């Protein structure tokens, strides 16, 4: 059999890497053998490693890289139903199917995610208020368990396993393949309305009043300014452009977009900009000068801006960063989000890439993150005071009946997790039926007490 690679591994946030033993099977037979007789007692699957936390890390066991098991199985151009192996990436799905007029029903802010990872974290995009999360479009999946049997799961067949595997962090078994619906899009461009708003409150009011007009809706929030500038934001809301919206030169091939590449700035140089004065200046430039109005933007620039910078996560330095991603229910979202922003802007912390959006209801998985309400996500480079700040933030989230996204979490405590996800016990019960030997374990699962 193949040989393993021992290497320090963490999530995309690079938060406390630990040595891990990695395998990368290229055939089903190798994967199956690895799962049934792993060289160490536990395994966890890993996609492209873009999860920010430690959900695909397993220092005491084996990490199985799924990237080479990325074959497409079938596609129905009538319905847009695509079946592919779990290692297939959103990047290659877009590359093959956007030219045919199809796009993924939900995309996170990177296309470097695998289908397996998208299911294990039930990812969503800024169209959640309208289209739901990725797994709302999932029709069926195949799950490989520790004894080597393959379970076909859908909302009607093995429904419990289906609900537990969606957002289940890979703890119910290895997701082998999945069938889901792509959506037809008129072009690869979006007509985007930009609007500056002075406060978080205003942003949320606009979301509530106007989200029904937009398929994609979110806001960039200034995460550095406090006081009267607290929560000033730029709303970015849009719909896929119809042919008639496109300039004539784009109409012949509306689904083709020239690849977007950022100016090559060395990471070491970009690192110098990671301080308060420079970032404040950049934020002010962005929120102060960018004009409100309507523009035509291609999907790549709108959804996946940072994908053009390879390993942008290294910009935060060796200690890494945490992605804080919290959701609040409608009743408490204004207050909760404001308190969160106050706490972040008070200290000397660097809160970057803060993004606000609406969420349109519970997801199909037991541990799915979305609820009806609003969510805020931002990056925090790890500094001496970060753990204390995170405790404060967690308390605010709990006090306002909010919850954190498990796809991004690297630091949550078990007690806090239990109150955020009351269905955790149901998940544990279904999980232990599916995996009685506790073969599937991640560092995150151990931290949150998901494995009994």
């Amino acid at each position, binding site marked *: 059999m193949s*040989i393993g*690679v021992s290497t320090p591994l963490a999530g995309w946030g690079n938060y406390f890497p630990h040595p891990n033993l990695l395998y990368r*099977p290229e*055939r089903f*037979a190798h994967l199956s053998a690895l799962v049934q007789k792993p060289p160490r007692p536990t395994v966890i699957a890993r996609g492209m490693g873009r999860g920010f936390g430690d959900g695909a890390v397993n220092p005491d066991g084996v990490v199985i890289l799924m990237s080479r098991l990325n*074959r497409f199985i079938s596609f129905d151009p009538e319905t847009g139903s695509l079946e592919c192996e779990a290692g297939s990436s959103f990047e290659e799905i877009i590359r093959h199917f956007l030219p045919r007029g199809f796009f993924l029903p939900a995309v996170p802010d990177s296309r470097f995610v695998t289908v397996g990872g998208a299911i294990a974290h039930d990812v969503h995009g800024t169209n959640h208020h309208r289209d739901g999360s990725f797994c709302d479009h999932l029709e069926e999946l195949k799950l490989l368990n520790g004894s080597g049997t393959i379970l076909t799961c859908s909302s009607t067949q093995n429904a419990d396993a289906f609900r537990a595997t969606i957002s289940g962090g890979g703890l119910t078994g290895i997701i082998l393949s999945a069938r889901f619906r792509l959506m037809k899009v008129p072009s690869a461009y979006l007509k985007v309305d930009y609007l500056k708003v002075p406060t978080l409150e205003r942003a949320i009011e606009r979301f509530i009043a106007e989200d029904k007009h937009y398929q994609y809706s979110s806001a960039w929030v200034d995460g550095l300014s406090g006081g009267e500038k607290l929560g000033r934001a730029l709303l970015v809301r849009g719909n896929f452009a119809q042919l008639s919206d496109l300039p004539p030169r784009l109409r012949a091939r509306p689904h083709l977009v020239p690849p977007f590449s950022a100016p090559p700035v060395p990471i070491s140089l970009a690192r110098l900009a990671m301080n308060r004065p420079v970032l404040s200046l950049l934020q002010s430039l962005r929120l102060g000068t960018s004009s409100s109005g309507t523009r035509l933007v291609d999907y790549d620039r709108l959804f996946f801006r940072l994908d053009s910078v390879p390993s942008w996560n290294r910009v935060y330095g060796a200690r890494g960063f945490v992605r804080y991603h919290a959701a609040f229910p409608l009743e408490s979202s204004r207050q909760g989000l404001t308190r969160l922003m106050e706490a972040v802007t008070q200290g000397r912390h660097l809160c970057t890439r803060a993004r606000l959006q609406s969420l349109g209801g519970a997801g199909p998985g037991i541990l799915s993150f979305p609820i009806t309400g609003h969510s805020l996500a931002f990056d925090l480079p790890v500094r001496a005071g970060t753990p204390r700040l995170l405790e404060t933030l967690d308390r605010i989230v709990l006090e306002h009946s909010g919850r954190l996204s498990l796809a991004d979490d690297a630091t949550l405590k078990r007690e806090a997790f239990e109150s955020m996800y009351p269905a955790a016990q149901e998940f544990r019960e279904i999980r232990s039926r599916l995996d009685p030997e506790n073969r599937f374990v991640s560092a995150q699962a151990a931290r949150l007490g998901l494995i009994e």
Partner: protein
Amino acid sequence: MNAPILILGATSSIARAFALEMAARRHDLILASRDQRELATIAQDIRVRQGVHVEVRRFDALDFTSHSKFFSEIGGTCPEGLSAVALFHGYMPDAQADGGDFEQARKTIDTNFTSCVSILELAATYFEERNTGAIVAVSSVSGDRVTSDDHTYSAAKSALSTYLSGLRRRLHRKGICVLTVKPGLVDTAMTYGRVKRTSRLIAQPEEVARAIAAALVRRRSILYTPWFWWPISVVRRSIPEFIYKRLG
């Protein structure tokens, strides 16, 4: 649609990438390998991605006596004729098994050399009768000079390179191209765990596949891929043996 290409050892990651590359260039494909489950998956993937016609065949490189039947069946089902035969199968024994294990050594030689001679002789005759065609076979830079601790592998690849050179001379007059591919380090199951992942020298199978396809179109004879393995190999070959023996 261009005439089909027969790909032997089609479940290797370089072969899969090459198959996808040729399918993107509108070639139909016949994929052959031992692992039928994997072969079916790869064939279906190529159909969904590129919409070309893909057939699969069972092919056991080490079952030499089956080769003649295997090849004549393909000739029978493919009336318009093959445009090329591309050979990708190979075998590298586990590092710990090396040293004194003759069964491993024989399997290495048979997979990487003997089986190639057996099947490529048939391919050569097939193309000779038609006065057209191309043969692609994957050797290795370690066939130029022993590079790893696995000298049986290097020896077998060296023999393959030499054999292909002879085949090229024989088929040249008939206008048949023989392309020897000498990849350096490629990020495949064979090298995973043996080579540092962060190494700048390591190439992705897709890059190698693109280079092979381009070389085939230009009907080149020898391809080092990525290109920088050519100077590396030249330097390596020029090191006198009395020095080289100390470098192991």
